[in-house]
């Protein structure tokens, strides 16, 4: 980030204090991104994105407001902040609003590169290389005995993001990261005229670690695997959920532990801290400091220092996610505003394999027979009760091996009972994801078809 933009942030902070705010925080984000989209082996779209915006948090006479703008001239900013302070004055006071205590925030001066998420090669990459990267993994044109390729859409992107935060309590912190991503979606048609699609992707802070080779082939393989899929008989089945989609079943737990949900009474995990509400097989660590990995962060949006800690340990909830506001509202001590980089630890009491080597296929062997879910087609959950219902695709398996593809089915249940029925947790989470959720196995889940 450039010196003049940091200066602009400090000017904005001083302006806010000068025109009536007693406390303020400035979050400045600046990003650049280039995308190359391909269609059927040719470049289809090229996009260049350059964004800067300033988020201004104001505490005025016990009142609170959040404002953002991308009009970043000094004059425009001053006028914007003046109007913002006037707006805040019209609101009701809320004594729960405050900056975090300085000792909870990240200390020292950061250059943004402490977590090793910046690839110097980003500055060298050129348009021709981007185009080659976007086209290299294409499988177009391909044809099989039982299918024809209808379309292949690819997207290569690289980006650089800066996030700079200062506040009137003395916080100053910078985070920066590069990211290189590539994904392919394939649509095929079988000899009966039915279409099937498959998608695969990868992402890394470093171009040299982007696993783009074979991505088109993997997407094609997934589409072919679904040929002939149909629903099977409704009933209770063991369920193995592939690591690509398992966050669908874990993210609602994180949402239910969020302080806003707790404060509003809109959570199926009210009063859960210190209680064993899940299977003892569920242990979740927050690991935000792993160098060179997507999602690692030293501080959150309030500047609070992140930490390595247990969120859930052997089924016992260790803490809610409480920022300054929700902690004050609930009369509790603040923790951290959210899980930064949660990691589910492996668990398989009946497995003879080393836990750290467990993959999805091992979970299928442990279950014997059941349904492997590799795609969720819509659905939702009730945040207050934990009831859920999702559309699914995948495979029926026996003896740990896929027997036939399934689609057009629904899985229905309640998160509390589902996670009490956890059979096993694999160790195969993809490091390209910010949340490290591996393949999961559950027993006796209701499927409708």
């Amino acid at each position, binding site marked *: 980030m450039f010196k003049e933009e940091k200066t602009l942030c400090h000017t904005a902070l001083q302006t806010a204090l000068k025109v009536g705010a007693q406390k303020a925080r400035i979050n400045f984000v600046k990003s650049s991104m280039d995308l190359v989209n391909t269609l059927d082996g040719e470049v289809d779209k090229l996009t260049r994105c350059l964004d800067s915006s300033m988020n201004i948090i104001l505490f005025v006479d016990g009142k609170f407001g959040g404002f953002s703008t991308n009009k970043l001239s000094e004059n425009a900013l001053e006028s914007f902040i003046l109007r913002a302070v006037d707006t805040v004055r019209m609101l009701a006071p809320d004594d729960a609003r405050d900056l975090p205590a300085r000792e909870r925030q990240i200390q020292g001066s950061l250059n943004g590169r402490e977590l090793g998420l910046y690839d110097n090669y980003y500055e060298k990459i050129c348009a021709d290389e981007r185009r080659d990267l976007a086209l290299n993994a294409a499988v177009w044109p391909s044809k099989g005995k039982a299918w024809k390729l209808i379309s292949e859409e690819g997207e290569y992107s690289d980006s650089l993001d800066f996030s700079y935060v200062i506040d009137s309590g003395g916080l100053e912190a910078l985070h920066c990261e590069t990211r290189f991503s590539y994904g392919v979606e394939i649509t095929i048609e079988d000899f009966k005229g039915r279409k099937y699609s498959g998608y695969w992707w990868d992402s890394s802070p470093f171009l040299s670690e982007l696993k783009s080779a074979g991505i088109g082939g993997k997407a094609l393989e997934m589409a072919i695997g679904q040929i002939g899929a149909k629903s099977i008989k409704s009933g209770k089945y063991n369920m193995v959920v592939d690591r690509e989609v398992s966050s669908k079943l874990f993210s609602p737990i994180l949402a239910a532990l969020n302080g806003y949900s707790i404060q509003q009474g*809109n959570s199926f995990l009210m009063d859960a801290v210190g209680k064993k509400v899940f299977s003892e097989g569920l242990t979740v660590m927050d690991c935000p400091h792993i160098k060179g990995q997507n999602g690692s962060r030293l501080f959150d949006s309030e500047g609070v220092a992140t930490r390595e800690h247990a969120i859930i340990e052997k089924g016992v909830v260790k803490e809610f996610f409480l920022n300054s506001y929700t902690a004050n509202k609930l009369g509790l001590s603040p923790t951290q505003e959210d899980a930064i980089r949660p990691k589910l630890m492996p668990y398989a009491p009946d497995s003879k394999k080393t836990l750290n080597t467990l993959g999805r296929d091992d979970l299928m062997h442990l279950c014997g027979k059941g349904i492997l879910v590799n795609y969720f087609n*819509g659905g939702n959950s009730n945040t207050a009760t934990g009831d859920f*219902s999702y559309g699914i695709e995948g495979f029926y398996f026996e003896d740990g091996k896929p027997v036939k593809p399934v689609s057009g089915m*629904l899985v229905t249940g309640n998160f509390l009972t589902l996670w009490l029925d956890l059979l096993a947790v694999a160790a195969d989470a993809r490091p390209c994801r910010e949340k490290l959720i591996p393949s999961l196995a559950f027993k006796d889940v209701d499927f409708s078809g």
Partner: protein
Amino acid sequence: MNKNKYLKIFGVTEAQMKQLVGEGLKGGGSWCDLYFENTLTCDLLLRDGSVSSGAANESYGCGIRVLQNGKTAYAYSESTAWRELLRAARAVCGIASSGSNIPPIAAHKADTKSGGQYYPIKTDWREKSAAEFVSALQKLDNAIRSKDSRVQKVIAILSYSMSDIMMYNSLGELTCDTKPMGSLAASVIFMQNGKSETKSVSRSFRMGAEMIGDALIEELADMAVEGLDASFEARRPKGGEMPVVMAAGASGILLHEAMGHAFEADFNRKGQSIFADKMGKRVAKRGINIIDDATIPGNRGALNYDDEGVTGQKTYMVEDGVLKSYLHDRISAEHFGVAPTGNGRRESFRYNPIPRMRCTYMESGSDGTLQDLIGSVRKGIFVDQFANGQVKIGEGDFSFYVKSGYTIVNGRLDMPVKDINIIGNGPKALADITAVAGDLKIDDSTWTCGKEQSVSVSCGIPSVLVKKLTVGGI
């Protein structure tokens, strides 16, 4: 259209825009357009009985697009200073010229002259201060609490935006518009005998601040507590395939997910849609008409012009059961050799336009009333409130999440149900609509479609009977 107002907002002249387009086309492109946007978005939030949080966002900039035989180069600038605009135009010119040298395409046959007046603004949101809306949120809180003693918590949110839009293209067409949008929503937590229930309700209109009034507040409060007894009693039904009666209004999500997306022409241009080879063919029973419409005054999906400067219009996708038209932007219209249908939409100047729905609905039928439809089902399900939906374009498999409904036993509503997903296949579900009542209702909730970009939409439908869908259950 007072073009001088918009030229002043963005600080450019027509001559400069012509020059920018010229710069964009220097790399060999055949089409270039500019999209200027100045949007102010504000939110006021009531929590725990007081309006103690406010937010505002300004978003300003210009997107520049060059097309080369259906291929796109896109860049944008967050400043409209001449130097920055020129830089963005040269960027798209550069990326366009890095593609193959394809001959220019023909001029697009679009109606850009007769923009509608589908959202005349009586009170510009920007002329009001936040304080003037605080009382509306407090009234809504009070109204909801007064209607049911089981109310525990209320979050009420007023969101509004005003967007000044100016578009210019390589045909020399200049189009300007100011788009308002207002949404009032409440999320309520109820408690009964230690059990919690949630309910979210909203109303959204492309209107100025005149939309806020006692009638709207009362309507939302009634909606918030409607069906609460049934919610506490509701259980999961036995799952499986069964007939589904869908109530008029929000059940229009069926059309949006099961058919609307598959009719968007980009998916058909690429051959991906399950409807890609169905143009001119029967896809539903006789008498069924499905429309995507930008011309309903004040509707969340209303558009005087789309985001490519094409006049807002009403498009019959299915007429008397036959597939008549896809939903086109300029690229797909060129591909199919038809006029654009005014469906080129974008989330903001940061995105290039793609085919998107507006207000998607089915016209009323002649198969009686909702009661007639329920009465015709021996064993099935009735659904009336929804949360979200999704579709797989190629397979046509869609789903939508049901917040409330009832089982149907021997032609009568029986046990209340909630929190179930319903899944089906688009063409099959469309063909399986066996009865359409005469009670079309457009639902004015805050529907937002998330295909690559978020855009405001709405939907509607008369009560319909679908012969067979798969219902989640235990």
